[in-house]
């Protein structure tokens, strides 16, 4: 299963915070996560298995996708 976790306002734009999916072939993250409200790509961080990635990174089953807003600390 591929696990997707999204934090902050991008989660609201995607309509979910966490999801697990079975995928049978490599697929780009942007095909798994659709934002229904504006989320600028330069304002998010995409990680696959905690490594830097982009929405165009292809993932396989068992990958962990984490999407975070860019933040600047308290």
């Amino acid at each position, binding site marked *: 299963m591929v696990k997707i976790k999204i934090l902050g*306002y991008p989660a609201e734009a995607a309509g979910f915070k966490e999801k697990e999916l079975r995928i049978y072939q490599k697929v780009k993250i942007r095909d798994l996560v659709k934002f229904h409200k504006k989320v600028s790509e330069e304002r998010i961080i995409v990680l696959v298995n905690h490594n830097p990635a982009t929405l165009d990174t292809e993932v396989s089953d068992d990958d962990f996708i984490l999407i975070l*807003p*860019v*933040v*600047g*600390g*308290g």
Partner: protein
Amino acid sequence: MKGWTGKILRVDLTKKKYTTQTFDESFAKKYIGGRGFAIKLLWDLLEPRTDPLSPQNKLIFASGPLNGPVVPNAGKMVVAAKSPLTGGYGDGNLGTWATVYLRRAGYDAIVIEGAAEKPTYIYIENEKVEFRDASHLWGLGTYETEKKLLDEVGRNSGTLLIGPAGENLVKYAVVRSMEGRAGGRPGMGAVMGSKKLKAIIIKGTNELPPVAEPDKIKEMTQKLYEEIQKTENYDFWMRQGTMAIHAWCQENSVLPTYNFREGVFDEADKINGEAMEKLRVKIRGCPLCNMQCGHTVLEVDGKESELDYENVGMLGSNIGLGDLVKIATLNRMADDYGIDTISLGSSIAFAMEASEKGLIDEKIEWGDFDKAKELITKIVHREGIGNILAEGTKKAAEKIGGDSKDWAMQIKGLEISAYDCHYAPGMALAYGTSPIGAHHKDAWIITWDVKTGRDKYIQIKAEKVIEFQRIRGGLFESVVACRLPWIELGIDLEWYPKFLTAVTGVPFTLEDIYTAADRIYAHIRAFWVREFNGNWDRHMDRPPARWFKDPLTKGPFAGKHLDPDGYEKLLSMYYELRGWDERGIPKESTFEKLGLKDIAEGLKKYTKLTP
């Protein structure tokens, strides 16, 4: 000269006299305001190596040219002095109407000198300055003090005041205003207390200094307020403010937990932004702000307590407490006593670890709410173990010994704020090189640690720290405005030189501001070296040993820790990019390039400068 008043109020509490010092446009352009004015005044006016709690220390309140002419989120003021906690340069900023009233009274800054014989508050009404008895306020908490003062002087007043922590010279006492705003982590409240100065009241009813383009400022202000409200995450920000970072930090293993042993907390979900949303009763904030971030919840006794991420991080997971209402209680106590929640949380955690290791007699277990409350009272009143902890964790470690200096979580004497850096080397560098000791306000670059690789010790991280220091520590601390609209909401930085130009008539660019920022940084570093009598080396910029030798044991990054060689490499890159030598002291050529030849000459009395 437009935009600046060109005047600094000098108040001598010993002699009960006041004078006005003037400055010209070349001074104003070179230092802009806020922190820039503060370091220049401290360097010039403070006798080198002065005891920070002696009457000779100078306490400075400095505004910037954007304070007053209704610029969005510019209701801020800088407070600075030689720090009793670190022995070096100390400052902080706080939201307060005092910044606007000060400029309407006709001044850009106040310098407080000397010390009163008995508790005093200073009353400033335009050109008039009075020294008023504050005996009836001495010993009162900040909430009651502010209420009584406003009853005495009327509502349309700017307030700057201290609580019992400042009176009792707790080394991390802060200055407070507006029942919730606080600033000056490195003991600015203790400096105020050492002068027997309970409060400053400012009533300014004059016109603000004339601005160059009043109509343009009005137009830009309206547009920027609208732009902020239209940003893509405005609604979410208004719901959680800085508390949104809590879940972010937990997910990325940077949430300070058990005195920075770990970066994840088992009970994080109980105290994060979502948990806060369910308890919130009010949103409060600074003047002139339309993205207020103070979320008020009710504490155990039903009193309001204004939370943000830092105090929840430090008084929650860092002391092992997973109950937001109880955290709110500790936070309310800290606010009422006028003590910094970050250093307080670190000091409580230090005591808990010391107790666990048998280095102190007191039994204080992780997450023990009642003991934490008791400890806060003891710190503020300097009783028993509290008297040791009131000195900060660096001094406390010297006192209790053992291996405690390795986990006294401070740099240069200032406690690290709420981000664990076992696996965030760029952020560790930001803490190491922060100009006041370990604080995040100048640079917060965990986003770039995450984006470029947590295990990387690469130049882009050193570059990012400097870029952030120029923006957050330079631009925002000198104009003086809130830094949060920029990264949090994505507001374009070009707004700020445009506002500065429209206010002052001086054609500022971002590059001009960054040059001023570099000047301010070099000047602050010179101040530290002077106050340490030239005994300065790169070890002053190193984080505590815990992050290097006690790996994380939980979460996705268990086993990770900072690499000592990697950190030194990053630090050298930082120095090279700044034009500082391998000791971390600006080179003579750097001082000259920044127009600080006189500072270099002054510094040569204390150390040999690298050409």
